[in-house]
């Protein structure tokens, strides 16, 4: 993805230098405000790490090997501003010291890989990981998705840069002066390799590194996890967060309970003895029971057993409530309250037994 000198026109290079300059300036300002003295060694060592990571030969499914850019793990650990600077520094050293990637195209390479790559990787990671715990598998999936999308987004932008060259830069005879292929060729040519190999390499390395850090050094994942500082991954906090979600869901369902009275008739098989006796109800029973012959009275067993227990709030309609929808809602709250009380009692009972066992 490193565009060498000569493939892009000077005007394209100048525009992309300017665009990259805006990114560098913004990232530097943001980081300076946050931690100026800590910035230089952190970014430098991370840039060196990304550089070395790019040399890793990663075996990929299908028998091929690929190289990662390292932009995703940089965005996950350092955040977008740190990643923009670290990857830009790594790209600059590749160009200026190792002659890999051009000098006139340095702005373009930094724009594609460091800026677009970092922003896409960071946004994807945050969206997919959401507020999952640091040790959640979801973060590994988020890192893989972020890596795949970041590498492909960077490649796509590079493909557009290549593809616009023959449109804008050609001589009087129509000879393209720089990269010769139009967008219709440049985009598929660039994207096939990245969709099939480079994107997978970035996804595998990002997911692998996040999985490793979750076990070995979770603190490195904390700065961009989107969770409050110091309260991110303890099991209690995770449980509390899950319980909060559960309560919200239960409350929502309770509010929706009156929907049950919109449907006419009685649920099949839930008839009372009186309903079975009624002529209109029996028609319904007969219709849903494959036109079984009508009976003049409710079956004996049903009549006998239905009188064993009389519910305090029959049909979810307390007697003192006039509006059926409010009755439904009240019944839901009552039911949930009963279940909560039961679960709390059970919890207390189990805890007391465990404490007694420890003694």
């Amino acid at each position, binding site marked *: 993805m490193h565009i*060498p000198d000569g493939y892009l026109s*000077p005007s394209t290079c100048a525009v992309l230098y300017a665009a990259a300059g805006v990114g560098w300036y913004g990232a530097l300002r943001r980081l*300076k405000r946050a931690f100026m003295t800590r910035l230089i060694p952190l970014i430098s060592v991370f840039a060196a790490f990304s550089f070395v990571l790019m040399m890793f030969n*990663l075996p990929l499914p299908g028998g091929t090997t690929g190289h990662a850019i390292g932009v995703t793990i940089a965005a996950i650990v350092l955040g977008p501003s740190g990643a923009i600077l670290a990857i830009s520094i790594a790209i600059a050293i590749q160009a200026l*010291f190792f*002659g890999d990637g051009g000098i006139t195209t340095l702005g373009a390479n930094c724009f594609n890989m460091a800026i677009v790559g970092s922003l896409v990787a960071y946004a994807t990671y945050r969206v997919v990981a959401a507020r999952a715990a640091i040790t959640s598998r979801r973060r590994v999936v988020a890192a893989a998705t972020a890596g795949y999308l970041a590498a492909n987004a960077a490649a796509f932008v590079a493909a557009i840069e290549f593809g616009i060259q023959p449109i804008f830069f050609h001589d009087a005879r129509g000879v393209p002066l720089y990269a010769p292929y139009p967008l219709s060729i440049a985009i598929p040519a660039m994207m096939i390799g990245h969709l099939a190999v480079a994107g997978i390499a970035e996804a595998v390395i990002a997911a*692998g590194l996040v999985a490793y850090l979750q076990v070995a050094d979770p603190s490195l994942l904390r700065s961009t996890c989107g969770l409050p500082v110091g309260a991110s991954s303890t099991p209690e906090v995770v449980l509390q967060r899950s319980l909060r979600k559960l309560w919200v869901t239960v409350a929502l369902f309770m509010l929706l309970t009156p929907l049950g009275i919109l449907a006419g008739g009685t649920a099949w098989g839930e008839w009372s003895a009186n309903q079975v006796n009624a002529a209109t109800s029996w028609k319904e029973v007969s219709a849903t029971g494959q036109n079984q012959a009508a009976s003049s009275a409710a079956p004996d067993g049903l009549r006998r057993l239905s009188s064993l227990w009389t519910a305090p709030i029959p049909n979810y309609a307390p007697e003192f409530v006039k509006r059926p929808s409010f009755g439904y809602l009240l019944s839901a709250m009552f039911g949930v309250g009963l279940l909560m009380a039961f679960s709390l009692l059970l919890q207390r009972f189990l805890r007391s037994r465990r404490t007694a066992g420890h003694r």
Partner: protein
Amino acid sequence: MMKRNGAITGTLVALTRAFGNALVSEQIARHCGLLQALDPRVRVIGLFTLLLAATLSRRLAVVVALFVIAVLLALLSQVNFKSLAIRVWLVVFLFTGVIAFPALFLTPGDPIVTSRTGTLQITAQGVTTGLLLIARVETAVTLTVLLVLTTPWMHILKSLRAFGVPQEVAMMLAMTHRYIFLLAQTAGQMFESRQSRTVGVLDRPAQRRMTTRTGGVLLSKSVELSNDVFLAMQSRGFRGDARVLSEFHMRSWDYVGLLAFLLVGAIAVWVGRS
């Protein structure tokens, strides 16, 4: 060797090659050649001017002339011609050639060769664009490699600083360069130790797991290293300001060199403008 755990061996080869290239570069930078005799700032401006001229020029003859100038500069600066031919020109020719080749057929224009079936035709415009691309990339890469080979990294950094690059950025470039070799060495040792303890052949998923775990360990080590460096900098009184010592002094020979570069660049842009 390459077949056995190929990806790990490939990584080791890449890391070793990086060390080798850096060593060669440092050695050549110490030679007494034409470019080495010039002030590093003149070298940076001059070679960048030629690079810009090669990029701006629209005529093949002008780009080729700039390539010849780059080759002459390499010879006068005692850069190994054979190494340049194999490591730079051949690689660039093959890489760019593969990219440029389909342009012979795909670029619309005046046909100069048509296949018997008439489905394929090479156009004059296609040939010109292919040759122009190869010549321009060869010239640009040669000029960049010349700068890299004849200028020690610290001199490039000082020159950048002289051209207004913020000191924080210059410092980060310097430190990154220093730690690349340290981390590359650490990574190389980790791969080597694993390779030496491995009996038989690791399957691909195992190699993949090993590579990502090595990356993870390297990442942890990098962050630890950055903490150590930060504490060391703080203990030495670092408060975010950095002063770079400048020993560069322009002599008359440097002015002549600068003028020559600017003149050649300007002529190339003027002649190659259409």
